[in-house]
């Protein structure tokens, strides 16, 4: 009877296991398989194959029963999800429904999730701005969280590595706050973007408007063509999955690339229950997996394990990985796991009209828009709040329906859309400060359908956020006024944390095992063959959209892991 068990174990043994197939798990899979490691990728959701499993990608507007709307009963059954903009009739199948995967909101928190191969990389907003040293040095300079164990120079070559492969559009803007990278041609700016850019430069000197860097292929180079991805066609339907592979996702890029090496084993429908810790070896030896459909438990083994389950689920999984050596969760000697969660404050919005630039309008669509990098407290502390904010800016002037009149008048009006005025808008993305009191923990009594503890989420804004959002609206109002924009309307949304879909932290990096869980290589201080490279690893949040940084951290950590493995250190 011993032989089948040994064979079984052999079949279940890999060089590496990657938990999660979203934007960071996909990168771990790519790097590890390219280096020759037999890699198992475990994904809790169903399989989604590029092109094959995008049922709505080529549908016309009138082919949707509700023309894009989600029926009211479905919205009411999913109050959290109903607040996510990208949840529409054409993308419904890529979002987790509230009722399917409950969690406990100690305070209001909108947890937006995509449980399928590719995760939320199918659905992301695709903005890809690098961090600068002002971000990595932030906690040390301003005295919050802990010092990042890395600096920009550690990550710069890895930013280049992932940008070249993924295909990132942008200009070389030469700004301190937002380092340049390996860019495809930028997304075009329009006449009013250009006007605002000029006004900001002339008025402030240190406030800049640039074309935001985006993971859409403004041009497909040989690198992307080799992945079977061609130029973005500006359809602005990314959330459906792209028939051209025009934007970066795990499904279109890293996972098929990993598969081509012959070293990848994908196992969808695999809910990871916990990591297995071997006290004698002093390392994690594998994972316990519950089959999503049959609920059967299986074990898989590997020399190194990458945890890329998505920010909060990574904390959940590691907290659930208890052993006699780690009774509070794997590697959690200091009890800080699940703590110091932070996010981005998206409350502040502004919009206005513009009477100038009448000779110009906009034609067609673009997948990107403009961006004003952080200017507050950049070089030194200058306000009564810590850190700063970036602003997404967008201006447009195109045809809008003329819906006035009745009968033939209305019909003629509808056939002749009117040229609208220039509309401009800005949305603020504020850095929030990681605090011990913003945390996730395992519910002590309730479990989900797979026997996993429900996650308690206890995250809130603080005084610093309130001061910052007020300052942002004040500054933007001044900037809009200076630019001659009129009819300015500001709004403070007071949306729950989480809806920014930029939740970070819980398993933070740091120098000291007493105050952090991961070292400068995203390696667990206490369990050296476990690497956490999704949003959970983030020590602070900066203002930039975080996905690009997760990708760069993952590629860097994966290459380090392979080196360490070859040296026999893990």
């Amino acid at each position, binding site marked *: 009877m011993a032989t089948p068990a040994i064979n079984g174990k052999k079949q279940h043994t890999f060089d590496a296991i990657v938990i999660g197939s979203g934007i960071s798990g996909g990168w771990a899979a790519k790097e590890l398989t390219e280096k020759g490691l037999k890699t198992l990728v475990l994904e809790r959701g169903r399989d989604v194959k590029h092109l094959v499993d995008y049922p709505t990608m080529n549908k016309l507007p009138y082919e949707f029963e509700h023309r894009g709307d989600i029926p009211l009963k479905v919205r009411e059954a999913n109050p959290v999800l109903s607040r996510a903009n990208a949840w529409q009739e054409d993308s419904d199948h890529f979002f987790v429904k509230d009722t399917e995967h409950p969690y406990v909101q100690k305070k209001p928190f909108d947890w937006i999730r995509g449980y399928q191969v590719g995760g939320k990389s199918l659905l992301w907003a695709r903005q890809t701005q690098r961090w600068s040293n002002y971000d990595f040095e932030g906690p040390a300079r301003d005295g919050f969280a802990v010092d990042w164990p890395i600096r920009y120079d550690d990550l710069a070559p890895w930013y280049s590595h992932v940008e070249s492969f993924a295909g990132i559009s942008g200009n070389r803007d030469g700004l301190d706050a937002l380092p340049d990278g390996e860019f495809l041609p930028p997304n075009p700016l329009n006449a009013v973007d250009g006007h605002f850019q000029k006004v900001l430069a002339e008025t402030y000197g240190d406030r800049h408007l640039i074309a935001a860097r985006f993971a859409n292929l403004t041009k497909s180079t040989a690198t992307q063509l080799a992945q079977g991805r061609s130029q973005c066609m500006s359809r602005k339907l990314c959330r459906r999955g792209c028939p051209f592979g025009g934007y970066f996702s795990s499904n279109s890029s890293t996972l098929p690339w990993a598969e081509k090496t012959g070293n990848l084993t994908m196992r969808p429908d695999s809910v990871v229950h916990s990591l297995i810790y071997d006290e004698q070896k002093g390392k994690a030896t594998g994972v316990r997996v519950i089959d999503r459909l049959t609920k059967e438990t299986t074990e898989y083994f590997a020399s190194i394990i990458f945890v890329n389950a998505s920010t909060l689920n990574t904390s959940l999984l590691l907290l659930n990985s208890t052993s006699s050596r780690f009774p509070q969760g794997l590697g959690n000697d200091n009890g800080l796991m699940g703590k110091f969660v932070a996010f981005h404050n998206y409350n502040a919005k502004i919009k206005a009209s513009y009477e100038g630039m009448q000779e110009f*309008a906009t034609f067609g669509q673009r997948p990107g828009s403009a961006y004003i990098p952080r200017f507050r407290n950049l070089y030194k502390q200058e306000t009564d709040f810590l850190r700063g904010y970036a602003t997404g800016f967008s201006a447009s002037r195109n045809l809008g329906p003329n819906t006035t009149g009745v009968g033939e008048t209305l019909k003629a009006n509808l056939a002749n859309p009117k040229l609208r005025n220039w509309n401009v808008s800005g949305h603020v993305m504020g850095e929030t400060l990681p605090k011990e009191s913003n945390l996730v923990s395992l519910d002590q009594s309730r479990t989900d359908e797979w026997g996993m503890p429900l996650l308690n989420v206890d995250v809130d804004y603080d005084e610093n956020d309130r001061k910052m959002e007020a300052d942002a609206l004040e500054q933007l109002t001044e900037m809009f006024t200076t630019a001659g924009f009129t009819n300015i309307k500001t709004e403070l949304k007071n949306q729950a944390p989480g809806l920014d879909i930029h939740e970070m932290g819980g398993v933070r990096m740091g120098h000291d095992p007493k105050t952090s869980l991961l070292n400068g290589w995203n390696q667990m201080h206490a369990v050296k063959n476990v690497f956490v490279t999704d949003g959970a690893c983030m020590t602070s949040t900066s203002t930039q959209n975080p996905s690009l940084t997760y990708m760069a951290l993952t590629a860097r950590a994966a290459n380090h892991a392979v080196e360490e493995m070859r040296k026999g250190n893990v």
Partner: protein
Amino acid sequence: MNRRAAIKTALTIATGFAILPRHLRSASGPSVRLTELRISATEEALLAEVVETLIPATDTPGAKELKVHLFVLKMLDDCHGAVDQRAFEVGLRQLDGYAQGLMGKHFADGDTAERENVLTSLGRKEGVSPELWTFNRLMRSRAIEGYRESEYVMTHLLPHRMIPAPYDGYYAASNYELKEVR
């Protein structure tokens, strides 16, 4: 409407009718499956006349031919709450009485100008019950949506491009004003 378009529209209507189960074509119920909204076949027929008045057939199909009234019912049924649904039902039932008060005959018996006058008056709010006013508001916005996003309009009148032209942020505004579609 050119011949090809006419045939295509006729086919759409024919197949649209053919796939409806028999019981949905009975005189008493509406011809779309509704779970929340309570609408009789007579009321559905009146709604068809109302949307046709709003967006009439000219040399191109009008709202009735494009089955916009059924789209309005579908959206009211699936995407609106009970408050809107009840107001819509009550308002629709009040419509003919309102029309009779205004022009001395049933809405369906009015000529184009008379019917258009009824819809215009509804938008003015005064002398209009809250339900009837809400009915008109919901009917109007959903009918315009259904018409603009109908296959006919999106393929023949204002063709929808799945792959739009490259973005131009300095497009001459005059280029837009030169284009007049009839």
